């Protein structure tokens, strides 16, 4: 496989995952805005922090308002992580790796690009938002589903998996980093209530509220939420799970008779070190410091993958 093809696949599925994440965050904020009595701009602001675009946003817009945030996250081409920007990068990368994906995956991307484009060509009003979000989720689910259903489990698939899981781990970590302060009071004072409403929303934005209850029961502590999002081995959006998948793929991609790629060493190291910890230890270490550390280690793995597999010259 070409290094450039591996790069294209890796980024194609990072962007698919990114759209999925942005859409989830918007859906959660929308839900909070309609279910809570006092409207809170901070819900919208925290999305901007989570996707890491607050600075760029403030260059374009004076203040954080719902319509502007929606416009920025969905259709602003200045925002490299907007649904529109990601969709055109998805299509561009799909064209570049056209021969590596199946007809079904290609068609789901191509037709999905057209259908989303039709919806977001004009300004998206609040009442159109849920339609745009559900169509975007449908398209991403179709792309991911077609990938799982029709692609051979060979090198190609593993580069796809690497891109998807790097992006997903990164998103969960950023979400945690933006909301970590909500957990702090309950760590410091035993028995104090934390904003369960907010945390329900956080867990909901990784689509796993039901899973949380299934795993830990209905009385949920802050430490359990931390465990669930970071250390859990079966929750598909937990950091541990994502890095575990990355190690598996890198293991598959290791060449027989050659020494282990650096990226595999790094992901195994992360898996056996920071990610084999416990919620209590993480809290002792400092939740903010911990998430910052893992965000940078994940970025390092991503960077090392591009070197190990000659994405560029």
């Amino acid at each position, binding site marked *: 496989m070409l290094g*450039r093809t591996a790069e294209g696949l890796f980024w194609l599925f990072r962007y698919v995952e990114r759209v999925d994440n942005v859409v989830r965050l918007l859906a959660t904020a929308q839900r909070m805005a309609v279910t809570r009595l006092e409207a809170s701009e901070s819900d919208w602001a925290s999305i901007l922090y989570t996707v890491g675009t607050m600075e760029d946003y403030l260059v374009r817009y004076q203040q954080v308002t719902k319509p502007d945030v929606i416009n920025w996250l969905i259709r602003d081409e200045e925002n490299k992580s907007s649904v529109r920007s990601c969709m055109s990068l998805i299509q561009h990368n799909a064209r570049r790796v056209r021969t590596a994906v199946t007809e079904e995956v290609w068609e789901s991307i191509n037709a999905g690009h057209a259908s989303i484009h039709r919806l977001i060509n004009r300004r998206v009003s609040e009442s159109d938002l849920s339609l745009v979000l559900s169509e975007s989720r449908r398209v991403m689910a179709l792309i991911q589903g077609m990938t799982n259903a029709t692609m051979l489990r060979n090198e190609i698939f593993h580069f796809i998996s690497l891109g998807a899981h790097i992006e997903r781990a990164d998103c969960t970590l950023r979400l945690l980093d933006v909301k970590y302060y909500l957990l702090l009071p309950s760590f410091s004072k035993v028995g104090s209530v934390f904003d369960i409403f907010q945390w329900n929303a956080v867990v909901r934005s990784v689509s796993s509220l039901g899973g949380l209850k299934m795993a830990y029961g209905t009385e949920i502590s802050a430490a359990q939420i931390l465990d669930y999002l970071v250390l859990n081995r079966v929750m598909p959006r937990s950091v541990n799970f994502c890095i575990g998948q990355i190690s598996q793929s890198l293991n598959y991609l290791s060449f027989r008779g050659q020494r282990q790629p650096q990226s595999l060493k790094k992901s195994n190291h992360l898996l056996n070190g920071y990610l084999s910890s416990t919620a209590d230890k993480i809290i002792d270490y400092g939740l903010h410091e911990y998430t910052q550390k893992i965000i940078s280690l994940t970025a390092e793995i991503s960077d090392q993958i591009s070197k190990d597999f000659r994405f560029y010259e």
Partner: protein
Amino acid sequence: MSTTIPTSSDDLYDEMFASTGKPRNTYKDFLEWFEAQNPRGLKNKHRETSKIFRDSGITFRSTKSPLKDQLIPFDWIPRIISSSEWRFIERGVIQRALAINAFVRDVYHKQEILRAKKIPSELVTSNPAFLPLMMNMSTPSNVYAHIIGSDIVRTGPKQFYVLEDNARTPSGASYMIENRDAMLDLFPDLFSIIKVKPVENYPDLLLTALKSVSPQNDRKAVVCVLTPGPYNAAYYEHAFLADRMGVELVEGSDLRVIDGKVNIRSIRGYTPVDVIYRRVDDDFLDPLNFRRDSALGVPGLFDVFRAGRVTIVNAPGTGIADDKAMYSYMPDIIRFYTGDEPIIKNVPTWRCSDAKDLSYVLSNLENLVVKEVHGSGGYGMLIGPHSTKAKINEFRKRLISSPSRYVAQPVLSLSTSPIYKHGLLSPRHVDLRPFALVTGDSVTVTPGGLTRVALKKGSLVVNSSQGGGTKDTWVLET
């Protein structure tokens, strides 16, 4: 120059219906099927066609709006060719392909055709398509133009003409295959009634042809398709052919010359490649040997080619054979190398560089097509009878100031083949580009090819960049 071919003032030849209004034999079975269909069902099928093409992303990008994916309109009424008509076309295409290869080889070796004064020397040696770097370079099996697509038009029952030859990087084969795939999807029942020769093995034949010219000449030859990238008008075709052949689609930045071989940058390191089916123009192939500002090419590629350690397909410099200035000499070229008369004729052509021809052209501009010698895609062209006084005068000035840049031809009354329009059949002008694959002494022509159709009523311009569409081309088994 006298001409006996029918021009636009004469009766049109329609491929489906005789002038009496009766269907021709080739279309009888199709029309019978067509008449028996539910009109509403056909309208639905008609709508379905553009969805098929849009979803599968079969698009092109024109130079005018390079960021926009455009569909080439597909008309689902097939263009049908009888097996005896096809045998004639096939013989003509094979003859031409062999002559073109013999000509290119000669031009870059002894230049016997120039010594025999069949073609003016300066027309070859000072032609921008002539590559002095190719002098005395031999290629595996002496093939230079491995893939040739000559554009053929028809004006009567037995009258076929070659309008131009494409011996550099002819495109359109993917549409030939996709059009058939779409038809098989839409109308499977038709293919059980009418036996049509298959086209889907073109990629296999192409791969065989490519492997046959590998420097090592072995079956394990590594082949790749070199594309200028996703912004190129024909990128879709490059990806399609690479995919159907099961070889890598590479860009210049994926290739690198290491130790006298061309290598592909793969995830496991650099691996050598033997045959490059390039869809990048000569000028851009190698910034060290050709255009320095090319970011599409591979530095040093030509040196590896000259050392015989990689094969470039089609070879650099084949453009000398399909240059419009050379076109009018093609009958002489065919006679010189094959000893036979051309099977498919050339359209009579006035060379404006010749004073006598120029004066004829200037006094008959209203009735002629004037073409720029180095133009392509239907740009820079005057179609006298369909033009305005102002445009004609503009061309008159251009002809007088630089006559050698132009050639002129009579306006052919291209045959028509019906398209489906509002539930009815409506005649439109068509041409045909069959694809010839050359391996050593043998030439394979895939039965059919790409039929291009001018969708505007009365228009003679079939180019997709100017409102042309395509049709599936059927060659009947019997």
